[in-house]
């Protein structure tokens, strides 16, 4: 009977103690009365529970299904705990067999009682683990139980289990940080490759022991290593430096990751600057998205005018996209001194899910080499560039249209000349403001920052700042200003369109109307600018003052126009 009991405690069912379907042991009722007194019968109950737990843990530990690195080590730890308990039982059994001690049910109970709580906790842990997707977050579950049990022996056991998991995480980190390799056959790590072959962080998988910012640094270091080893640019020194990672205890890993990041940021900086990739990409963007090479787009606009005037059905979209792309390539090859491979990184497209003419929907795409595309010229960034591009493209196209009228000045009457002059002035000086006061100035600020830094990540923030400021100073986020620009472009288009159609009758009437519309627009523009000026301070004030100065240099658009409309009213 005692042996049966010990057998049951080690998790094995026998004749006396049988295992029910729910995994709990029960004493066989037929032989339930074999000389056990009432108190012994009471004691049997917790012993049955222990046996059940041991059986449960055993079953868990011996499950050979491989689907997780973390589960694997947890199983090993739990198997070890179970084995320790079973060894304890073995000692008791030997004692009994040798007759050196007379242990009844009560004696056995009192001997193994200290283990009860641990086994109980372990069972709860395994229950919790079984409910989870196996990945590195299992560590958080273990940590939770460790921090909430309050019994030192149990804390120590949980800590051991936690430590073995930490070793797995450490291995994964080292593999990533050191070789840029994901040691992660079961997708448990917080970094993975996404559909478009980019390494990304899965925020839900970051364990408590790492902060989000640290995780980002980890991502950055690994990505850098990938880039650097692709470029075969890792030196002995780098290896040695990162080799330290393997040896250091996990507690110090944060500091080491930071050091790695610095090292990598420097190395990556060298990578992108030494081979001139960064400058090249920046220049490409400056020349195209920000239209610094104006001749490319003068030609491009000329070549694509008829296409971009159109509104597209989905079918037309495809055909036109091809034509646009061809013409962009022609323009670039004609006017940009760059290698063909570099030029072919650019493409032009029409946004399918927006209404309106091509001019409102056209956008450029630029395929940059890793790591620039992932780390700097991200989709969001390129979207902002495209918004500025569309504004500049439209400003440029209207100026070209207006210039087209100029040769016929001699046959035009003064009110027509006046409107042309006024529109041209505003368009030119708005463009001048954007190109020189905003883009060129911000570019020089960024250049200075880049010049001082040797750090990829710092460059990243310098560039981010560059674009944020340009977007702000071109009023990209002020709908009223954007609407005003649009109206101005529309007004100029109407004016130019009149000449394209060659209908000379009604010209003076239209021009008088447009002149009034122009005055109204100027009033609106200046009241918007003055309003913003009054609400702003310091650095946000300056650009508005600059635009006001450019547009109203001789005070005509404010005072002169006002005086003129007063005169007109007087005459009426």
């Amino acid at each position, binding site marked *: 009977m005692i042996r049966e009991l010990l057998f049951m405690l080690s998790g094995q069912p026998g004749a006396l103690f049988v295992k029910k379907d729910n995994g709990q042991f029960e004493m066989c009722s037929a032989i339930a009365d074999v000389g056990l007194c009432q108190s012994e019968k009471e004691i049997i109950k917790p012993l049955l529970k222990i046996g059940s737990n041991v059986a449960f843990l055993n079953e868990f530990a011996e499950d050979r299904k491989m689907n997780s690195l973390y589960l694997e080590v947890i199983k090993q730890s739990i198997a070890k705990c179970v084995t320790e308990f079973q060894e304890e039982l073995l000692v008791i059994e030997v004692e009994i067999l040798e007759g050196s001690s007379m242990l009844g049910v009560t004696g056995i109970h009192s001997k193994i009682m200290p283990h009860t709580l641990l086994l109980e906790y372990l069972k709860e842990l395994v229950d919790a683990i079984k409910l989870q997707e196996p990945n590195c977050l299992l560590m958080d579950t273990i940590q939770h139980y460790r921090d909430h049990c309050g019994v030192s022996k149990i804390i120590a056991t949980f800590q051991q289990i936690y430590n073995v998991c930490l070793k797995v995480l450490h291995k994964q980190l080292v593999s990533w940080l050191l070789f840029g390799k994901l040691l992660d056959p079961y997708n448990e790590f917080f970094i993975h490759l996404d559909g478009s072959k980019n390494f990304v962080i899965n925020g839900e998988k970051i364990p408590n022991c790492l902060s989000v910012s640290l995780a980002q640094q980890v991502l950055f270091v690994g990505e850098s290593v990938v880039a650097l080893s692709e470029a075969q640019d890792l030196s002995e020194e780098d290896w040695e430096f990162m080799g330290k990672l393997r040896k250091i205890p996990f507690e110090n890993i944060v500091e080491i990751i930071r050091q790695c990041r610095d090292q990598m940021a420097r190395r990556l900086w060298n990578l992108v600057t030494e081979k001139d990739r960064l400058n090249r990409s920046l220049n490409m963007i400056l020349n195209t998205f920000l239209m610094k090479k*104006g001749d490319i787009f003068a030609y491009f606009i000329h070549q694509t005018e008829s296409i971009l005037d159109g509104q597209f059905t989905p079918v037309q979209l495809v055909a036109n996209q091809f034509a646009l792309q061809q013409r962009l390539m022609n323009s670039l090859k004609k006017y940009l001194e760059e290698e063909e491979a570099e030029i072919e990184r650019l493409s032009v497209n029409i946004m399918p899910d927006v209404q309106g003419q091509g001019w409102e929907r056209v956008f450029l795409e630029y395929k940059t080499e890793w790591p620039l595309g992932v780390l700097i010229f991200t989709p969001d960034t390129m979207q902002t560039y495209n918004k500025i591009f569309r504004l500049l493209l439209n400003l440029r196209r209207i100026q070209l249209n207006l210039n087209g009228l100029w040769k016929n000045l001699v046959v035009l009457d003064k009110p027509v000349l006046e409107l042309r*002059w006024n529109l041209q002035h505003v368009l030119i000086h708005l463009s001048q403001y954007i190109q020189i006061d905003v883009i060129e100035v911000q570019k020089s600020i960024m250049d200075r920052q880049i010049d001082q830094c040797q750090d990829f990540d710092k460059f990243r923030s310098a560039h981010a700042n560059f674009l944020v400021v340009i977007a702000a100073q071109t009023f990209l986020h002020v709908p009223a200003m954007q609407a005003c620009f649009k109206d101005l472009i529309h007004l100029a288009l109407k004016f130019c369109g009149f000449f394209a159609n060659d209908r000379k009758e009604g010209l003076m009437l239209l021009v008088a109307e447009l002149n009034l519309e122009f005055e109204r627009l100027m009033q609106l523009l200046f009241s918007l600018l003055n309003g913003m000026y009054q609400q702003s301070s310091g650095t946000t004030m300056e650009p508005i003052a600059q635009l006001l100065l450019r547009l109203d240099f*001789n005070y005509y658009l404010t005072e002169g126009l006002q005086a003129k409309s007063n005169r007109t009213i007087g005459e009426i």
Partner: protein
Amino acid sequence: MPSEVITLQLGQCGNQIGFEFWKKLCAEHGISSEGVLEDFATEGVDRKDVFFYQADDEHYIPRAVLLDLEPRVINTIMNSPYAKLYNPENIYLSKHGGGAGNNWGSGYSHGERLFDEIFDIIDREAEGSENLEAFTLCHSIAGGTGSGLGSYMLERISERYPKKLVQTYSVFPNLAESSDVVVQPYNSLLTLKRLTLNADCVVVLDNTALNRIATDRLHIETPSFTQINSLVSTIMSASTATLRYPSYMNNDLIGLVAPLIPTPRLHFLMTGYTPLTNDHEETSVRKTTVLDVMRRLLQPQNMMVSTTPDRNGSHCYTSILNIIQGEVDPTQIHKSLQRIRERKLAQFIPWGPASIQVALSRKSPYVTTSHRVSGLMLANHTSISTLFARTLQQFDKLRKREAFLDQFRKEAMFQDSLDEMDDSRDVIQSLVDEYTAATKSDYLSWGMNRPGALAASSQTTA
């Protein structure tokens, strides 16, 4: 759209400044005197095709037509190291080589006789270009060939190529010294009429001012033609910098001139250039800043036109374009504009918006200069009319005395009457009047119903 420009060099003066211009362009683009791209210049980001085309053997050849009625200057060019630069078929020397005898009428009637031969060359050159935007004419308005033949060519080109821009670099005579060409005022006035009616944009290069600059600023006691022409070629090359080193804007000729010229007649531009230094005394002491450059460009002593001092202070700028070349801190641009406005350094028209446009352009990497930043101003200023008024005065003096008219009467145009002279006088008077009107706030309603203005404009559109 980025463009191509054909340069027509007429007469002695036109060919001399043209010669200096091409020398300068070759140096800036790294093209040898024989049209071969230098080894150091193969990686250039400049646009050479505005002014050059490439022959089958890759040689760069100027889009230039050289015309003269007497051989001296063209022979000098053909005996220089640059002899092989030009397309020999584009050089036209009148066969009898007698010249126009400093007579506008003679130059003009030579044009009529040589029409076929000259336009064979020009038409071939135009057809050979892919995207011709403009003709640029270099000439002087005072002699015989540049003025007379030049006038004839302006009329024909504006008829024959109505869609192409016609720009001129026109050298005005030095009024500070007495000229040996006594009929200079006649020649000038007759040419000015064509510059008013048949050109889209005239860059005025005033020999009076050029000589003053050479003596006062460059400390040359008696400036030579070559020294003066080198000043001119500096102006010409700088004014085309944005075409040859394209950036955001102004990368075609129309984009340069349209923002400067509000109404058809007000198309006479003055230029200013800085730093004008012969030696390096000034520049080596301190850095040239953008503000220095932009401020100096507004000072009369740097202007290449000598206008009569404006006693009423009513003359004003219609527009300004500053082309700044070199290493520039862009934040300085706005500060300079601000300073110029605060200190009222430039007076602008009262009848429309006006401002200073700034184009930032590269410097040629192949030409070393002692200064980091240099600036060219192209400006439309109403005081340029004082130059025309002076020509009118001198014309009137001669005309009243009927002096030196005999040689004109020999030419077909003046055989029956001198109406052409008087008509030209009317056109220039009306031009002066229009510039004066442009200083007032009611300019836009000026001359709306004047029959003279209408007749003159209908003449050009016919």
